[in-house]
């Protein structure tokens, strides 16, 4: 039993001549929220797709519980307990809460010689799973099309947790959400951590990440800038590294210029 559930050692990924990831090192621990930060195009998506078994690393090692592993497909990663909640959530709007909850992993029971979808039990499990995330589902057979973005996010997370995820990868879970819904999702993240899961939270919003995260890894243009524990780094430092200090300074100067013009106008 390794200290870390998941470890990346010098993982690189190329797409033809494009270097999407170069020498990424990352350590994921159970019961920790690991925040993966980076601006657009930093390689966050490629990295999580590599973790999720969609892409195979071109170079480098992938240790699962200390053992070198290679995932051939998303299914393999899932079987190993690595569940990914993508931005599109992998939910089908036209399908009911229960059908979405059990999509691809339908709960079956014997009915004579046939295996049938046990809808009654599935409904109960889906309802209970969502209640634990703080969402009350009136009718689990109702299509999810009318649910809010935050509720859908929680449904996707609840589903991953129910199916035995040990490592939960969340891709920009708060990107499209309002303030209140973002807070709800972050609460759910904290709840997942309390249950002993490792959570990898991908975001470019430090303000969302900082309160719940235990560890940070920063990506920039396909390379890792390093990993820090929360105690080692402040919110401002992260922000600065992320945006590149110079750009932020430029922005501030520009804003100051606006202020000056405004005061002049008055």
């Amino acid at each position, binding site marked *: 039993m390794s200290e870390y559930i998941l470890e990346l050692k010098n993982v690189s990924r190329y797409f033809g001549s494009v270097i999407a990831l170069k020498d990424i090192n990352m350590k994921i621990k159970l019961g920790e929220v690991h925040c993966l930060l980076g601006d657009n195009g930093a390689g966050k998506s490629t990295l999580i797709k590599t973790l999720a078994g969609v892409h195979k690393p071109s170079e480098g090692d992938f240790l699962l519980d200390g053992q070198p592993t290679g995932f051939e497909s*998303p*299914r393999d990663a*899932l079987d190993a307990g690595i569940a*990914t909640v*993508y931005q*599109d*959530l*992998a*939910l*089908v*709007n*036209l*399908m009911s809460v229960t*059908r979405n909850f*059990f*999509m*691809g*992993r*339908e709960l*079956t029971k014997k*009915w004579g010689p*046939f*295996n*049938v*979808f046990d*809808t009654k039990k599935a409904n109960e499990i889906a309802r209970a799973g969502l*209640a*634990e995330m*703080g*969402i*009350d589902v*009136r009718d689990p057979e109702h*299509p999810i*099309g*009318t*649910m809010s973005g935050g509720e859908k996010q929680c449904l996707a997370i609840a589903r991953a947790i129910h199916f035995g995820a040990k490592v939960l990868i969340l891709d920009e879970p708060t990107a499209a959400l309002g303030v209140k819904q973002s807070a709800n999702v972050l609460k759910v993240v904290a*709840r997942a951590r*309390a*249950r002993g899961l490792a959570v990898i939270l991908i975001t470019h919003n430090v303000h969302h990440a900082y309160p719940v995260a235990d560890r940070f890894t920063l990506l920039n243009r396909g390379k890792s800038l390093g990993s820090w524990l929360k105690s080692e780094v402040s919110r401002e430092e992260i922000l600065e590294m992320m945006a590149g200090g110079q750009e932020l300074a430029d922005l501030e100067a520009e804003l100051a210029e606006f202020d000056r013009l405004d005061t002049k106008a008055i």
Partner: protein
Amino acid sequence: MSTAVKTNDSPVIEISSDERVRKESIVKKMLTRPELGSVSGAILVFIFFAIVAGDSGMFNADGILNWSTVSAQLGIIAIGACLLMISGEFDLSIGSMIGFAGMMISIPALYWGWPVWTCILFAFAGAMFIGFLNGYIVVKTGLPSFIVSLAFLFILRGLTIALSILFTNKTIVSGVSEVADGDIFAAAFGGEIGTSFFNWLAQADLIDTYVDGSPIVTGIPMVIVWFLLLASVASFVLLRTRYGNWIFASGGDEKAAKNIGVPTDKVKISLFMFTAFCATVFAACQVFEFGSAAADRGLLKEFEAIIAVVIGGALLTGGYGSVIGACFGALIFGVVQMGIFFTGADSDWFRVFLGIMLLAAVLFNNFIRKRVTGSH
């Protein structure tokens, strides 16, 4: 309004029921059922013809047999088309497949001296292989199934005519009844069941008889039995099995389904094969009922099947629909087609009706989809 619920591992969880969600009435809930349109449509159609054509013999034993046979024939291919459409794909080659499968049964039986049952198995295997090919090309190339199956529409129709001329020098191959006599497989498609029951009904004077005392309806044709069988199996599979959930998922959002591990490619290919299977059942029933196969059999049937499915509440974009709905769609189709015949009206009106019905169904479905997905 919110309630606090105590659970084991986390202290207090707030469950808030949204004050902005109105209680939905039962009527509104019913509206989200895909079958609603076709079931109520069927009821309307029945009422209409009961008034207009009630005394024309449409609802006598032979009249009922008449329109239920037409409905069942269409229903068989509509069931295949329905599952395929829910999975997000089309098959425009259903009609051509009917003609092709009919020839695959008749030519070996009459010209190559094969036992009839082997011809039937050959036709099913051949059709399902073509269905596989159709699906494989769609899935692997990512081309719209509309185009791929349109190509197969022409390929199969052309092959049917060309091959039947090559092997037999004609486009209508008749005489299958003679060689099929006594073959159990052939009887499973062209036979009737319940003949003794109908004899009994005739003797008890409950149904009309010919002058010699034999009943005017001798039994229930196997095509109706196949229809009911396929309808119940397909509906059960769609609603109550894992595979059924995969069908919905594949059509609802293929990328999402794939990401979560649903084998959408396999689902789609197998449904193309099932559609071909249904077309072959249709063809076999026709061949053994009429005792012949013709190269133009099944012309335009693909569109009739799709219309029945759409009337049945399925969305053209996939992910939503119902086998029961499609069956009622086929029933509406059969009843109206025969009803217009019974009322003595010009049968051209049937097409006008069909077009209007299709348009109404699509508009209605669109409305339903907006309700279900919450987009306005």
